[in-house]
């Protein structure tokens, strides 16, 4: 079957409409129209030009991935990041290993650090309050041999817990930035698009 310019533009448009603004879409479509026009002016056939361009679905997937990654970069949110990752995964099976696995590992790591931070932050004051009660002589059961040491211990643990939570926050922000760069690099490098001869 002969593949035409109209078909190429139609597929590209149908895959991108709703994602991009009308202006962006018109701009992209005009690039490809110009390509066909120049090619035909050079004596090439629409069918041959279509084949050299490769699949319009691949082009649309790449444009979508770039769009969502840029969006996640300018407006930082979990939803945008997931969208960007999803769109990048759509570029090929290869990305499943190189994007999804590191992402899941990082999320688990950040979550575990966060939980530990919260635990220490809660446990610290509790231990301190118990030590104070022990000094006053209220509890029947003495946990602390030296209640004073208990108070210092409590301060230490609380501070450590807070540092973990704050550190986790900055770590998450750092990984978000690095993650976006990594996604961009992925779009540029990993996607396999070779012309089918």
């Amino acid at each position, binding site marked *: 079957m002969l593949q035409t310019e109209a078909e190429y533009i139609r597929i590209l448009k149908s895959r991108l409409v709703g994602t991009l603004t009308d202006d962006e879409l018109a701009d*992209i479509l*005009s*690039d*490809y129209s*110009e*390509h066909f*026009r*120049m*090619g035909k*002016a050079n004596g090439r056939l629409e069918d041959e030009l279509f084949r*050299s*361009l*490769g*699949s*319009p679905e*691949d*082009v649309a997937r*790449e*444009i979508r991935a*770039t769009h969502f990654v*840029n969006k996640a970069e300018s407006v930082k949110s979990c939803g945008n990041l997931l969208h960007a990752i999803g769109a990048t995964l759509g570029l090929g099976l*290869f990305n499943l290993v190189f994007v999804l696995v590191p992402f899941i590992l990082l999320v688990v790591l950040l979550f575990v650090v966060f939980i530990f931070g919260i635990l220490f932050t809660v446990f610290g004051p509790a231990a301190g309050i118990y030590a104070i009660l022990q000094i006053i002589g209220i509890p029947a059961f003495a946990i602390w041999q030296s209640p004073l040491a208990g108070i210092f211990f409590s301060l230490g643990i609380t501070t450590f817990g807070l540092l973990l939570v704050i550190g986790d926050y900055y770590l998450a922000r750092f990984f978000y930035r690095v993650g976006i760069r990594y996604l*961009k690099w992925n*779009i*540029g*490098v*990993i*996607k*396999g*698009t*070779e*012309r089918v*001869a």
Partner: protein
Amino acid sequence: MNIQFKKGVLEICVLFVLAHKDCYGYELVAEISKRIDISEGTIYPLLRRLKDEGYVTTYLQESAEGPPRKYYRLTDTGRNVEHEQKEEWMRFVASVNALLEGTNDAAD
């Protein structure tokens, strides 16, 4: 050649070509696909990314035949990046070649 390898090199190729002269899309694609076999359609998304990064700008120029064409030009940032990547590329290729020659000598 390995498709991932080629894709990574495509960006450098675009920068190299634009360092010599401003090009319109079709011209750039023709220039590159003359030597490297690649899906020509992916060069346009690549050009958009380079524009987003501020490496290239575009301008319209009237042509004798038909409507105006969109030309791509390297920005100052793009020129610096091109310069760095070119040097990096030269070093890389020299190292790989040296390695190949070394391996050949050992095999002989």
